[in-house]
């Protein structure tokens, strides 16, 4: 009977040890995943970004008034191109005004 109790106790201990090991493994795996997610962008799977700052020169440039002028210049050139395209559409509409010929069969 005593021997039987000892065997049962050993089995319980082994089971506990296995459970603890399993929990530890799971913890390590989850922690690893968490760290990886922290370093990747949400919209680009597989593409990693770091939270480290970019080079000092880039930061200075993007914050300067000159850089803002460059950006505005690009936007204005794009908008003027768009205005040209819209003007072409307007010219075509002007040409097609002749379709308003009031013809009744």
């Amino acid at each position: 009977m005593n021997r039987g109790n000892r065997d049962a106790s050993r089995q319980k201990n082994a089971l506990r040890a296995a459970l603890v090991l399993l929990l530890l493994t799971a913890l390590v795996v989850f922690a690893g995943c968490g760290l990886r997610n922290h370093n990747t962008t949400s919209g680009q799977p597989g593409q990693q970004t770091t939270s480290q700052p970019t080079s000092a020169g880039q930061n200075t440039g993007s914050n300067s008034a000159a850089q803002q002028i460059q950006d505005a210049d690009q936007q204005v050139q794009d908008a003027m191109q768009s205005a040209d395209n819209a003007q072409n559409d307007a010219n075509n509409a002007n040409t097609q005004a002749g379709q308003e010929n009031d013809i009744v069969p």
Partner: protein
Amino acid sequence: MRFITLLHSAPRRLIALGMAASIALGGAGAATALAAPAHSALPTCARTDVKCVIAFGDQRIDERTAALTKLNDKASAQVAAGHITSSQASAIQADVTSNQSGLTALKSKLDAETDATAARQDVKDIYTQFRIFAVVLPRDYHEIVLDIMTNVQAKLVGLEPKLQQAIASAPADEQVQLNSLYSDFTAKLGAASTQITNANGMVSYFTPSNFDNNQATYRTNWLNFRSAVLAGRADLRQAASDLHQMAKILKPSTTPAATATPTA
């Protein structure tokens, strides 16, 4: 060579006939080029053929509905590109919806007609009540241009303090050129502003009823409106060019500054 020999051997009358035919054909070609493209082969309906009149009218309505849908898409594309605001586009899109609804109602009326005279009146209404090709589309497409110009003008005016600041911080040898460009930039923005205000003030005049009431006055106003839009766009283009040249000089880099002057 063979053709020339043939010409020499042909009787003079035949040659004259050929030349007359060529002139006649050439004249017909020019007439076709001047005519409206959609109606090169106009159907003629018998006096009481109501179905024929309905089919003709339906076709004219479909052309207009499709053209309005295209305008709507163009306005949406400009919003998507960030060149006009949703509010600016909504004015054009409301006009599209209103005209398309009116045309749909007229189509239902036309399709239900049993009398050819009534059907012909409905066809007339397609032109006189809506004036899609004569008034709505030219006006609304120009409004898109004006909206883009208004936004570019505001953006450029908003940039003035930054430009002044950047010019003040620029090396002394660049400041003369930069100040010259900046001076032209502000002058052209002022001129563009005047033209945009003038053009915007005229838009509400261009209606189907004004078109029908006095076509001569309408055409004069239309030409003035178009001139204002074109002149304003030219002014803005020059201001944008000045900005581009200033941006090149002010570029934060080690390369030497470009030698640019206003081209106005």
